[in-house]
């Protein structure tokens, strides 16, 4: 098992409120890591601190290191454009741009300088194939992405994130706004994706965590209570709080 992301002593404050406390985590490459925990426990905040989307929120202060490919991503010299190209993100609600399906997928590559029509065509097709939506949209690449169903839009957003060829894909409760069938499709997709990518998902749904993830981290009040193999966490949790949460005593 090789570690792709190394988190050490990560602390994060929104103004005076400390949202993350001393997070330590080694995220394995080409596996799915699930972040679970009750609302407001800091799992989404943690996810957003991996691709520095928290930078956009005024009043955020971060200490500690997140090491990706030998570089601390909080080093002032790090270019967030480069970082976010390496670490893609899919949001809770599908957020396709109000453009054609093709332009949505081509947005990232174009942003990073790909101009050739031939190359773009190829990227669009492979990304849509990788996101298991190619067959549904191949005949209407030029029509608006907003005409797709919610589940299709979300897979389109996954394809859009894959189009810039990231190393890591972050999924922030990406199925919570979808119906069960779309959710199942995206779960299957996540499992397929781990052969090429490292996937980190935030989820409220513990069945989902057991179904798709290899590693699970349980967050509570801004701390990682327990982190380990998903099977072990759900069968023999070490910490009492983890057991209480996964058996549904709170949450």
């Amino acid at each position, binding site marked *: 098992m090789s570690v792709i992301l190394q988190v050490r002593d990560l602390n994060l404050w929104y103004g005076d409120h400390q949202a993350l406390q001393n997070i330590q985590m080694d995220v394995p490459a080409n596996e799915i890591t699930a972040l679970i925990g009750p609302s407001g426990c800091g799992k989404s905040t943690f996810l957003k601190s991996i*691709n520095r*989307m928290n930078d*956009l929120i*005024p009043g955020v202060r971060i200490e500690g290191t997140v090491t990706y490919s030998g570089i601390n991503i909080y080093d002032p010299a790090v270019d*967030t*454009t*480069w*970082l*976010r*190209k390496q670490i*893609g*993100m899919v*949001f809770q*609600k599908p*957020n*396709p*741009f*109000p453009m054609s399906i093709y332009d949505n997928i081509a*947005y*990232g590559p174009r*942003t*990073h300088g790909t101009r050739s029509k031939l190359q773009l065509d190829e990227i669009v097709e492979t990304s849509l194939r990788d996101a298991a939506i190619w067959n549904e949209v191949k005949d209407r690449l030029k029509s608006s992405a*907003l005409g797709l169903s919610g589940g299709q839009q979300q897979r389109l*957003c996954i394809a*859009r*994130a894959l189009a*810039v060829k990231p190393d890591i894909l972050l999924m922030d409760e990406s199925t919570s706004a979808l119906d069960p069938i779309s959710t199942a499709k995206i779960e299957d997709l996540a499992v397929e994706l781990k052969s090429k990518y490292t996937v980190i998902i935030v989820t409220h749904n513990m069945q989902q965590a057991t179904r798709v993830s290899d590693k699970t981290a349980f967050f509570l009040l801004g701390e990682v209570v327990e982190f380990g193999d998903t099977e072990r966490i759900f069968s023999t949790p070490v910490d009492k709080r983890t057991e209480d949460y996964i058996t549904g005593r709170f949450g």
Partner: protein
Amino acid sequence: MEHLSSRRRAYDRGLRFLLYLCAGITCALLVFLIGYIFYHGLGSISWQLLSTQSSYLNDTIGILPNLLNTLYIILVSMVVVLPLGVGAAVYLTEYATNHKVVNIIEFATETLTGIPSIIFGLVGMLFFIQIMGLKQGILAGGLTLVLMILPVIVRTTQESLKTVPQSYREGALALGAGKWHTVRTVVLPNAVDGIITGCILAVGRIVGESAALLFTAGFGLVLNSFGTALQSSSATLTVALYVYASERGETEVAFAIAAILMILTFLINLAANLVGRKLKKSK
């Protein structure tokens, strides 16, 4: 009970009558005003009026110079105000982080929209003509109008930028797009309808403006090329209306101009409506 309900009914009926009356009077006033202007003005509109300039020798009146001056001043003002206003709005909504300063600027722009236009004229005259040394003409007038409509453009642009969902920005940034790239490729294209509507409304204000132009663009009724008009006294339609009505006693010409202005205003508002509706539909 019986007594109360009949009183109520009478009260209800009385109130409804009053409301109908208010609506009726408003409508009647509007119809009367439009009808009165068209009745007096339409008859005096002729091809000669529209296509020539006034001549003392032939004793004819033509408003072609004023039509052109109006176009010139729209051109000058919009060319300056559009980049300035949209740029300022983009900075205020997308870049500025100090919310106190933004609030102060927003309050200031709101206040500016309420200032009587004659004051802009006075400031324009003192600043552009006395201090900067421009001659009375389209340039000085246009720049004065820029001051006046800048807040309109900034406000409407800001409002339409704010309607662009935050998730679009997040989506672009998460793909590694830079701030300006995000604004250019995702935010501005989705705010374009609002910006266009703002522009059309601004053009409407330019067409209808007279007070701010009296001191700055001048009263000239002579036909000039664009280049010459920039620096020589040039009356727009509204100023010409004032000149013909009050200084030369040509009420009929004044009404003809008024009718033309009404038609222009109608067309501009119609265009704003259509653009707004069409762009909304295409989303």
